């Protein structure tokens, strides 16, 4: 239990650091491009493509972090009406549905990564498969987290977070 929690915390911190690095790179790339266009009538042509890559990675890695911290937006009002005894079973059912989605993401993204590995993006030359690799890694990480939660329910509805 404690090991799992520590593992989750470390994963979360590593992913967060990666996300911040990617976010800062995106800001620099796009900002420098605006400055170059106005100040020097030129630009970095890879800027758009590279920032899109980073954006997809931030989205997918962040989705794992949000899953770990149970921050994905949801509605828990109806839950409160149910008898407490049902909750652990309901929680397992919800986790199973999410696990199904995560597994589909994993399998689908794996096929797409292979399919698009020698498909090169036109400007930077980075394989398009790198986009799908983000989906694959997210699918794997989410599946692990959710599989763990099927066996060890972790009070899914502990902190309903509201983000917009």
């Amino acid at each position, binding site marked *: 239990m404690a090991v799992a929690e520590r593992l989750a915390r470390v994963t979360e911190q590593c992913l967060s650091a990666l996300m911040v690095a990617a976010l800062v790179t995106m800001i620099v790339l796009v900002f420098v491009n605006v400055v170059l266009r106005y100040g020097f009538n030129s630009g970095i042509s890879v800027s758009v493509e590279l920032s899109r890559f980073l954006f997809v990675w931030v989205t997918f890695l962040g989705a794992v*972090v949000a899953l770990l911290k149970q921050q994905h937006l949801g509605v828990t009002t109806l839950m409160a009406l149910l008898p407490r005894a049902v909750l652990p079973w309901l929680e397992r059912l919800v986790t199973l549905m999410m696990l199904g989605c995560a597994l*589909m993401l994993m399998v689908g993204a794996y096929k*797409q990564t292979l399919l698009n590995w020698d498909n090169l993006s036109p400007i930077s030359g980075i394989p398009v498969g790198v986009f799908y690799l983000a989906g694959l890694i997210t699918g794997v990480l989410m599946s692990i987290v959710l599989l763990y939660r099927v066996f060890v329910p972790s009070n899914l509805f502990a902190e309903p977070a509201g983000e917009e």
Partner: protein
Amino acid sequence: MTITLFIGSLLGAIGLGVPIAFALLVSAVVLMLHLDMFDSQILAQNLVNGADSYTLLAIPFFLVAGEVMSRGGLSQRIVTLAMSLVGHRKGGLGFVAIFAAIIMASLSGSAVADTAALASMLLPVMRKAGYPLGRSAGLMAAGGIIAPIIPPSIPLIIIGVAGGISISKLFLAGIVPGLLMGVTLVVMWLFMTRKEDLVVAEKATWGERLKALRESFWAILLPVIIIGGIKTGIFTPTEAGVVAAVYAMFVATLVYRELNLKQLYEVLGLAARSTAIVMFLVAAAMVASWLISIAQLPMMVADLLAPLADNPRLLMLAIMGIVLVVGMVMDLTPTILVLTPILMPIVKIAGIDPVYFGIMFVLNCAIGLITPPVGNVLNVITSVGNIKFEKAVSGVFPFALAYVGILLLFVAFPQIIIAPMQWLAN
């Protein structure tokens, strides 16, 4: 049949407590099975393609700008400025809240963040000055939802991408209705505090006002840069976002010096996570929307609403009714993501201006943020203000009703939104 299946599975999953992003994926899988085309690659492809958008890069950028501003002392200075200008009037703190809400709306794109910042600064002061707590909290919540209407606005970016509407035009079109929301609040607050006996602050001297203005100058310059930059074509909305982010970081770390590197790292981490939560939702909605298209659901809805297509006003009224009901139980972003692809075709057939439609849609969903049973801005105000949910609901009720009133006004007279937008776009 297909519609029932889609909506039923979506609402069913949400009702059970499945996070909305995953519920959208579940409903997409149900549609796949219904259409006999189950394939994990459909989910993976559209999820990845949904997140792959240069336009939506504006979201993390504006989120960074907003977070940096509230943590870096910009919001505080705006409240100080408002206090020095209108704090001495009868019911003055209410006007301070409205004034600050409008300025902050033009700096940030998120209602929840704005409400939290406003309420944490002003609600304790109002409580101490003897203002009725429920009403004050209600005003703060109503002021907070001006944020998604006045640019920059994350919901306007999302509806722009989901509905293929020009984001620059949406931004320019949001200014007037956003200001009208502010005016509505002012009129109502005047009326409400007419008879109350309240402690008023001492009138600030011109010297104090000038000082407050000078200190908040850097914050107030930002909307000028964003709106001016988009209007003159110096940058696209995405680039406006990055300029806002860089500018906010510059002001918070180097001018105001209220954010050190460690705090900046935390703020960036927070913004990255908020980005991921919104974007994963957007991406999941793309999976659902791909299957909605394949199932030809928008055509079915268009057929259903076809009798109203000859009368755009009546159609608008019907759509606004639907959105209002959905918005009461669902959050702003998912409502936009689910309904836009379904409604856009009929809106185009009826010849309704898509920019006008986008503003109306977001305004309507924003009202949903302050209505029970599910209202994120209400949640924020209850937790920040430490008051009962019922009290916040009754406090916000008159303002929500007034907003529905202006919504109806805009249905009757679309020109109130369209005319200034056309003027600003030229």
